[in-house]
Structure formats: structure tokens, C-alpha cells
């Protein structure tokens, strides 16, 4: 199959709500066969200026997914009647999104939109939604989700967030920050700032809390923090390592790495009782657990075979080990830091071969592996909750950046800081009821 790599040079500078430059997004590779769509500017009938350009947010979302090719705003010449399907058809457009926004009560807006199949000349979706002004971006992402699901049959993951760690020099001192932003890099919120390393953010299944590692007490300890309130609790502070936390699918336990018994092993921590149950027993390094969505398996990194490879172990309903570890990865000299997709069918992980550290995806049923990002120093892959994209950390121009790639490795985008490193991305679960 002939694959054409479309190189898009559009670089969008993004500004947070406080008008401070945070993440920049660059779409580096598009996809062949992306669906052409026209997203018309939403009609605005208020007195003051338009509070948010909904159509621009939706078009950027759709473009970033790699599955859509929205007509650029500059080329968006409109017919007299927006719904002149013949006009759009003649310009090679298959789908059309139109909408309007009206002021409602104080600080509230009503947004209506319709999605049309231009070829068949019929409406595919039509909704009316309301939101406060500060939630208009979120509303736009929900519209993107509806368009995505209506046209592709797969839920969109635009109305989601990413957590990540930044490392910058501030006043000649290294500063680490744990941040949460919308999936498009906007609305960055700093959750924690420290002079000591912060590591390994992990979302709770309900998307309300983050577990992470902080060295604030001069050694690694695991904390759980509620994002909205900032309330935090230290949950693991044994001697030695307290690292690599991940949540059980029901949110009551963490799997994590402790070396309290002399060597890095996987444990399960009950968050209510704080009891720790040992899972692995081996003199080699065992770390980086990921919990299968059905709760029955853990996959982890172990160098028990001499090199880091992925192993799988079965758990019973209370999180006790019921099988001996079974090796999962056989290609390449270094396979580590696996993460399950939300449907449990795939793993994304770091795949090292011939001196390169790439990002690979394994289909667990077929046991087939695909390198989705041929990075030199790739790390920390994380699936979008719909399983369509993987976000990971890479190095570009001497700096740590985040990149997101579609799971078949075709569409790609990059998120970076203007200065300093950004790393360890963790894509949130779905945050709104569906």
C-alpha cells in the first residue's frame, strides 16, 4: 500500500488561560486518507466579541487526530447558503459541521451544532449544549468527540487530559513540576512544584487523583493527590525504593515497586489499610508494573533473564499472585515500562534494539509487535483512553518533548516547552460521563 507522508508545517503557539506560553504543538506527520471536512466558524449573535472560537478548537482537534483533514480557515470560502451541499461536494468535502453560539444567562452560553454528510445530503448529528464561559473549550472538545465517534464509530478522546513532569532551570536551580493540561496542551495546571525530582504520574481510574513519586524528603516516596483540591497523602515511605505506582482498575489499590526487603520487587498496596502485599520474589530487578483493565494480570519489567524484558503474572480477585511470571517480550535486547490499553488488548512499551529506544505496541492475542515511533530515546508511552493514539516522551534538539502518534504509527504531533524538558506523559481516562 502506498503511504504518503504529508508533512504539515503548521506550528500553533498555544497560550494558557493566564496568557503564559506553556506547551507548543506541532503536527509533524499527517495521515494519508484523512477525511476531508469543513468546520465553519460558529455563528455568534452576542453583543460583545465572540468568547471562544469553537470551530477553530474543533478543527484543530480533528486535525491532530490524523484521521481528518479539515479545510484551513484561510481557504474557507463560503457559499451564500452554508448548506449548499453541491458547493462543498465540488470542493472535495465529504462532511460539514455548522453551529451557532448564543449568550444565555450571566456568563453562560448555549451552543448548537449540526454535522452533515455532504454526499448524501443528510444530517448525521445535531445537538444543543450549554456551558459557562470557562468551560467553552471543554464543550468544543466534546463536539470533536461527537464528530469523531459519529464518523469513525470509535469514541473520541479530545475531552481528556494529560499529566506530565517538566524540568526547567529557574533562578539557576533545577525545578521539577507535575502538571495537568487538556489533551491539546492548553489550560496547564501545576499540581506540584519541587526542587527534587518528581516522577511517574499515574491517573486514578476515576480521573480525580494522581499517584506519583516525589524525592522531596531526599528519597523516593509515593504520594496520592486529589487534583481539584490539591490534598495529598504519602502512601508509601519504606526504606529503599517507593516507586512506579499504578492503580488497580477499581481504584482501591496501587501496584508499586519497593525494595524494603532488599531488592526491587512488585508489591500491591491497599490504599485503605495501607497494607503491602508482595507479588514478585526474585533477586533480579522487578519494577514498572501495569495492571490489566480486568484486574487479573500484572505486566512488569524484570532483568531476571539478564536484560530488561516484560513478564506477566496472574492475580486473584484480592490481588494475590496465582501464577509464576511468564515472559512476554522476545524481540530486541531491552523491553520495559509497559502500559495496557484501556480495552486490555494491547501493551505499549519501550523497545530497545541496536542502540535505539523506540516505542512499540504489542497485540496480546496475536503476540505481534509493531514499532509505532522509531525514536532514539523514547520513554513513558501512554494510550489515549480510546486506544487510538499513544503519547510518549522523546528527545528533540537536545530537549525532552512529548509526542503523540496514532497506533498504526502514521499521524504524529509534538508537544514541547520553549525551554526545559517535558516528560513522563500520562493520558487520563475519560473524564465525562458517556
Amino acid at each position, binding site marked *: 500500500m502506498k503511504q504518503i507522508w504529508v508533512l504539515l508545517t503548521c506550528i500553533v503557539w498555544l497560550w494558557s488561560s493566564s496568557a503564559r506560553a506553556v506547551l507548543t504543538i506541532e503536527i509533524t506527520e499527517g495521515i494519508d486518507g484523512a477525511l476531508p471536512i469543513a468546520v465553519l466558524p460558529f455563528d455568534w449573535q452576542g453583543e460583545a466579541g465572540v468568547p471562544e472560537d469553537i470551530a477553530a478548537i474543533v478543527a484543530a482537534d480533528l486535525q491532530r487526530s490524523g484521521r481528518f483533514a479539515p479545510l484551513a480557515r484561510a481557504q474557507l470560502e463560503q457559499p451564500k447558503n452554508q448548506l449548499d451541499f453541491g458547493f462543498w461536494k465540488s470542493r472535495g468535502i465529504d462532511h460539514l459541521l455548522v453551529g451557532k453560539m448564543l449568550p444565555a444567562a450571566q456568563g453562560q452560553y448555549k451552543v448548537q451544532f449540526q454535522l452533515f454528510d455532504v454526499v448524501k445530503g443528510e444530517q448525521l448529528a445535531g445537538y444543543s449544549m450549554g456551558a459557562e464561559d470557562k468551560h467553552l473549550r471543554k464543550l468544543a472538545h466534546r463536539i470533536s468527540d461527537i464528530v469523531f465517534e459519529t464518523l469513525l464509530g470509535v469514541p473520541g478522546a479530545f475531552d481528556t487530559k494529560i499529566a506530565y513532569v517538566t524540568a526547567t532551570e529557574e533562578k539557576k536551580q533545577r525545578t521539577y513540576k507535575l502538571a495537568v493540561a487538556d489533551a491539546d496542551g492548553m489550560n496547564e495546571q501545576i499540581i506540584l512544584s519541587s526542587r527534587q525530582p518528581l*516522577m511517574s504520574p499515574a491517573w486514578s481510574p476515576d480521573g480525580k487523583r494522581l499517584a506519583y513519586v516525589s*524525592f522531596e524528603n531526599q528519597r523516593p516516596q509515593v504520594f496520592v493527590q486529589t487534583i481539584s483540591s490539591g490534598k495529598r497523602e504519602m502512601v508509601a515511605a519504606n526504606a529503599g525504593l517507593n516507586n512506579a505506582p499504578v492503580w488497580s482498575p477499581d481504584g482501591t489499590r496501587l501496584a508499586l515497586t519497593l525494595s524494603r526487603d532488599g531488592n*526491587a520487587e512488585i508489591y500491591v498496596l491497599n490504599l485503605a489499610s495501607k497494607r503491602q502485599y508482595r507479588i514478585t520474589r526474585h533477586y533480579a530487578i522487578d519494577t514498572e508494573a501495569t495492571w490489566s483493565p480486568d484486574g487479573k494480570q500484572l505486566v512488569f519489567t524484570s532483568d531476571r533473564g539478564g536484560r*530488561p524484558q516484560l513478564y506477566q503474572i496472574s492475580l486473584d480477585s484480592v490481588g494475590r499472585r496465582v501464577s509464576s511470571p511468564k515472559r512476554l517480550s522476545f524481540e530486541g535486547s531491552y523491553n520495559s515500562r509497559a502500559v495496557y490499553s484501556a480495552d486490555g488488548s494491547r501493551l505499549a512499551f519501550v523497545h*530497545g534494539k541496536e542502540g535505539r529506544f523506540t516505542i512499540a505496541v504489542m497485540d496480546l492475542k496475536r503476540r505481534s509487535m509493531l514499532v509505532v515511533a522509531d525514536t*532514539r*530515546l523514547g520513554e*513513558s508511552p501512554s494510550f489515549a483512553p480510546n486506544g487510538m493514539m499513544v503519547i510518549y516522551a522523546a528527545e528533540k534538539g537536545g530537549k525532552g518533548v512529548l509526542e503523540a502518534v496514532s497506533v498504526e504509527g502514521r499521524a504524529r504531533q509534538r508537544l514541547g516547552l520553549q525551554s526545559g524538558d517535558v516528560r*513522563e506523559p500520562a493520558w487520563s481516562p475519560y473524564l465525562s460521563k458517556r
Partner: protein
Amino acid sequence: MNIFKALLVLLFSVTLLTGCPSTPSKDDTTGGEGGAGAKGSGDAAQIEGQGADISGGVSSMSLEDPASPLSKRVIYFDYNSYALSDEGRALVELHAQYLSAHPESKLVLEGHTDERGSREYNIALGERRAGAVQKIIQLLGVDAAQLQAISFGEERPVDPGHVEDAWQVNRRVELLYTEHR
């Protein structure tokens, strides 16, 4: 006393051997860990002999003297390995002698790795490196209460570069004296 010394050397060698990861693979960097470990046994005996000669010297050495061999406080490692080189072992032994002679002194062993591979695995690898150094120092008779090991993995590189020159100096254990005269 001699028997005791010989026993120590033996223990020391055995630890080095068993403490090494096995099966180095072809497609990674040089310096197979298995090889380094195997070499250890003979050299350890040699170093033990040397140590006996200069031990009196070490105990009277000052940590502040930049000309002192004790001013060297970093031990370097091969890629994905926690086996000590001959040079590294000799340096660790020197510090062990100092610590034995100064029971009031305290040492933090900081394990670090290069940036390649995953961060949490590197934290565990850094712990292995610090642990390998700690084990040797304790086997040479230093009180465990004088020692504290911690790993920063790849989080605190000395050289922020993304090439082998940088990686080489980042794969290390730093010896940090926290209490001494």
C-alpha cells in the same frame, strides 16, 4: 588474622560474581558484565594486599585534601551494569578503610544511570549500583549505620548531553560524606 583476611577476600569475590547480571547480549555496548565480574576474583586479592600496605596511610588522610586519593568520590559503570571495574573497586576499598578508621564518619552512596531506557527501571538500576558499592564497604568491616544508599536513576545527570560522552560520566555512584572531621 590472615585467615580472616583470606575469608573476607573470598566472600568479597563471591559477592562480585553472584552480584553480576548474566547473559550480556550482542547488540549493546561494550564491556560484558559477566566478563567484568569474572575478572574480579583475582584482582580483589591483589587489592586486598595493597590495601593492607596503605591502610595506615588512609586512616590519617584528610577528606579535605585535594591531593589525597580520597578526594576521588565517583565510581563509574558500564552500560546497564552494576559490576565495579578494578579501578572502581580500588577506590571503594580506599574509602572503606577510611570509614573503618573513622566510625564517626557517614557516607551517602548515590546511584545514578544514563538516560537510556525507562526511568523507573533506571531508578532500580541506580539502586543496584549503590548497593553493590555498599556491599563491598560493609564486607570490609564498615558499620552499616555509617552508610546510606539512594538512587536517583537518570533524574540527575552530571552532563545533560544525549551522547555516549555524557552517558559515560552519568553512569556512576557518588560518595558523599555527610558527617566527618
